[in-house]
């Protein structure tokens, strides 16, 4: 019986190496309950494109992908529901562009602190982003 279980376990395929990676993650300092933004570069070193579908964070009441856009002298911020990450390419989350918006951070975020966000992709891959907090 035990041998059978062991054999079963051995047949479970190991997941493929995740080609996605995150670099240079940082977030702005914020008061408890306030909003902040998380920025990073998301790289896809794999041969297949993927799509970022969801962001979550244990450090805030809500996390969403947003993009800031400028049109006719006005700044707008819009939620993004899916963000393609082309194969062998990268996507920059940076000020005045795409960012992860954390709403209602659950503690004061000060310089030297960090926040985490989990990214979930269409492929089923997940990535945990650990972003160091910088001065606002």
């Amino acid at each position: 019986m035990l041998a059978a279980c062991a054999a079963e376990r051995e047949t479970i395929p190991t997941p493929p190496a995740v080609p996605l990676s995150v670099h240079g993650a940082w977030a702005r300092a914020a008061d408890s309950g306030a909003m902040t933004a998380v920025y990073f570069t998301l790289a896809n070193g794999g041969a297949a494109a993927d799509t970022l579908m969801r962001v979550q964070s244990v450090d805030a009441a809500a996390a969403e992908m947003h993009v800031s856009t400028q049109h006719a002298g006005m700044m707008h911020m819009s939620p993004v529901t899916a963000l393609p990450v082309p194969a062998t390419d990268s996507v920059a989350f940076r000020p005045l562009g795409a960012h992860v918006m954390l709403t209602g951070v659950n503690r004061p975020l000060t310089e030297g602190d960090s926040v985490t966000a989990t990214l979930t992709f269409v492929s089923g891959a997940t990535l945990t982003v650990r972003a160091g907090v910088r001065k606002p």
Partner: protein
Amino acid sequence: MIRRVAGYLWVMRIKQLLPVLMTLVLAACGEPMRGIEIRDAEVAAPFVFTAFDGTRVDIAAEQGKVVLVYFGYTHCPDVCPTTMGDWARARRALGDAAKDVRWIFVSMDPERDTPELALSYARQFDPSFLGVTGTTEEIEALKRAWGIAAYPEGDTRANDYTVAHPANTFVVDRDGKLRYLYEPGVSGEDLAKDLRKLL
């Protein structure tokens, strides 16, 4: 033949000197301002607010100082803190000269932002920054006077709506005239260089 060789050498010399000449010309002209200059600048529209700490700001009474105004909101996680961060770097780069500059953040979200919140938001970037807001009626009057727009986007019944607001920093010169608009993303160091020219 000799004349042709002499001419060739002259052209070569000019080519060699060209970068030097261009540098001299640029130095003489100075670096261009990064802001968008408003031609036929007029005196800035009325702007009178009292901050939560009692500081009264009336741009008409600030002549002799350069005044920067940004119309944003405190729930703005990206462009507003990016701009305020650039202001803070400009403030530090200016050193003592910053005493003749006023930095004013105006919340265009009177539904959620109080004068207290607007002030504490601005001061987290630099203690010398002023943050103000007003009643809905006062903000509407400000929009009309300055010819600007700001409006909520998304579900305003929820507390997490966004506010569309002017992208640029408005710069009022020492004569009280609205002279320049600075797009977001101009670095603090570049902003400081330009402000020095206006002081």
